[in-house]
């Protein structure tokens, strides 16, 4: 009987040994707060099991840093492959000697007297505080219409996709044009399969601008450090799709114009399926214009920053990317029954899996209610690694440090408060 199992008591249970969970572990260790990191697989599990073969980080190596730890190789401007990311995070876990219990799956977290009871397939833990570091991207979010796709079509999510050769022969419809969608569209097209790409709202970004990586600009111009107070529309901010970027050794830009040049057909957002026919929105031109205008504002900001810091003269002139080209009459329909399209890749976003979280802290859309990672209505419960948790960089590897520091500060104060109210409570 699970209920009768004796619980191991600690101060903090961290769910997930990815880079965010480990960063929190680092700060808890610094504060001598007893904790355990529970990991269903191995350290950096999602990077090992849920990524496609060719994927590299979107951030350059110099940006790969965690508290007290940084990339020290000889290619600071390169982009890590997945084995390199896994090696990096593994190295961090060893460097900080994190108390990780691998191969241990959390089956439930619920509130009990004095905090939380965390049940796993290997034992039970009780702690006044829990840090949810289980990732924001463990489930592929598919639109409801995905269930209406004809049975002859193979449906693939980015979490399951590995390489083009695994797909059946024939044409492919890629739904979604954020970082994932454009990268998969490109490599699937290169494998010889005709690709149609359904494009909704997207964020256009050149890999380099004026000779420097866009992440360098975002970092130096202060974009990535913007916090919740700097963002006037948090609903929108937290729902912005990932930028159209790819990390490749040649630092090439992969935007919609590059995909058009390669021979990929752009269509509007997939808005409905009727009798096996995919219907695309007539909004493609507007979506591309919005992205072009947003990019122009970002590059304006970079240029103004370069002028204000006096480095403008040292840089290449500000050459702006050409406007996104949209066909005069983009296709509005695609018959999925004819046998031409064999596969649909649903690059339609991801969500966090909280199926094991038995604390009433989710909103009507299944998202965690929180204020900068301090979960609403559940004292002692925290979350890290969510998009725009506290800052624009929250979902980046290097964004873990500031968020983990802030949240462990809050957590430590909370634990002190609990201890003062109940001096007998066994909080280390």
């Amino acid at each position, binding site marked *: 009987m699970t209920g009768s199992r004796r619980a191991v008591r600690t101060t903090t249970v961290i769910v997930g040994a990815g880079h965010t969970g480990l960063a929190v572990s680092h700060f808890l260790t610094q504060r001598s707060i007893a904790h355990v990191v529970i990991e269903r697989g191995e350290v950096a599990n999602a990077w090992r099991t849920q990524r496609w073969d060719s994927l590299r980080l979107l951030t350059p190596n110099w940006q790969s840093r965690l508290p007290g730890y940084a990339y020290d190789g000889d290619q600071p401007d390169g982009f890590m492959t997945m084995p390199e990311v896994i090696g990096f995070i593994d190295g961090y876990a060893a460097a900080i000697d994190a108390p990780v219990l691998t191969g241990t799956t959390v089956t439930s977290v619920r509130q009990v007297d004095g905090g939380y009871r965390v049940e796993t397939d290997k034992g039970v833990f009780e702690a006044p505080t829990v840090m949810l570091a289980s990732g924001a991207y463990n489930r592929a979010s598919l639109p409801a219409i995905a269930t209406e796709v004809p049975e002859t079509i193979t449906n693939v999510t980015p979490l399951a996709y590995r390489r083009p050769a695994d797909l059946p022969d024939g044409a492919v419809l890629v739904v979604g044009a954020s970082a994932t969608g454009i990268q998969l569209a490109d490599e699937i097209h290169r494998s010889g399969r005709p690709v149609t790409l359904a494009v909704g709202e997207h964020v256009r970004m050149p890999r380099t601008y004026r000779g420097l990586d866009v992440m360098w600009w975002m970092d130096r111009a202060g974009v990535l450090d913007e916090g919740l107070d700097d963002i006037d529309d948090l609903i929108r901010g937290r729902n912005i799709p990932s930028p159209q970027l790819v990390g490749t050794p040649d630092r090439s830009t992969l935007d919609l114009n590059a995909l058009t040049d390669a021979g990929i057909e752009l269509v*509007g957002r997939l808005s409905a399926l009727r009798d096996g026919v995919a219907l695309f*929105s007539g909004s493609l031109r507007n979506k591309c214009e919005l992205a072009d205008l947003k990019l122009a504002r970002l590059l304006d900001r970079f240029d103004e920053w370069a002028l204000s810091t006096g480095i403008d003269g040292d840089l290449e002139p500000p050459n702006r990317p050409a406007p996104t080209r949209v066909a005069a009459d983009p296709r509005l329909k695609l018959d999925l029954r004819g046998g031409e399209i064999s596969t649909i890749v649903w690059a339609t976003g991801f969500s966090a899996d909280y199926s094991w979280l038995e604390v009433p802290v989710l909103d009507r859309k299944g998202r965690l209610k929180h204020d900068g990672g301090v979960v609403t209505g559940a004292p002692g419960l925290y979350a890290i690694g969510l998009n725009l948790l506290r800052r624009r960089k929250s979902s980046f590897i290097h964004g873990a440090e500031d968020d983990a520091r802030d949240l462990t500060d809050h957590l430590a104060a909370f634990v002190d408060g609990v201890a003062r109210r109940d001096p007998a409570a066994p909080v280390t």
Partner: protein
Amino acid sequence: MATQETPIDNGVNVQALLDARNALTDAPEAAQFTWRANTEWQRGTHSNSTIETFFGLGGEQTHRSSFSYDADHPEVFASEDNGPTPVEFVLVGLGACLTAGIAAVAQNRGIQLNSVKATIEGNMDILGILGGDPDVRNGFNDIKVKYQIDADASPEEIQGLVAQSQKRSAVFDAITNPTNITVEVN
């Protein structure tokens, strides 16, 4: 001499809209609206539609007055031309929606509008509605909207207003994306 900056006024109460968004995010059921028109056949292709009530914010709502619209077809269709054609009403809806959006976005972005004019053209092959060519659709082949805007803003900012207005427009969405329609008779 000190000059006083004139506050931006496009006649849009942005604060009320933002307050409504916050309130409705917490009470999503109140955000469910039903818009309603009543149509009655007159004679030939002439019909009259009235608009008076709608449902929203959890209850029945009434416009300040009842609005009445005649629709018909032009004389080149051998009709009496008692009013615009229904597809022209669609263009009116699109133009009105985008223009309202431009005003709201401009207000929110602190941009004073001086004049906003648009021409909306919908291209159509009427062999579709006449049943003369099964490959021709009934509806518009495409719609083109041309704005002339005078505002205290840069061309890029004005372009941004128009782009954002499309992004948030109900009619733009209704035309660019399919909608299920149920027609019942009793």
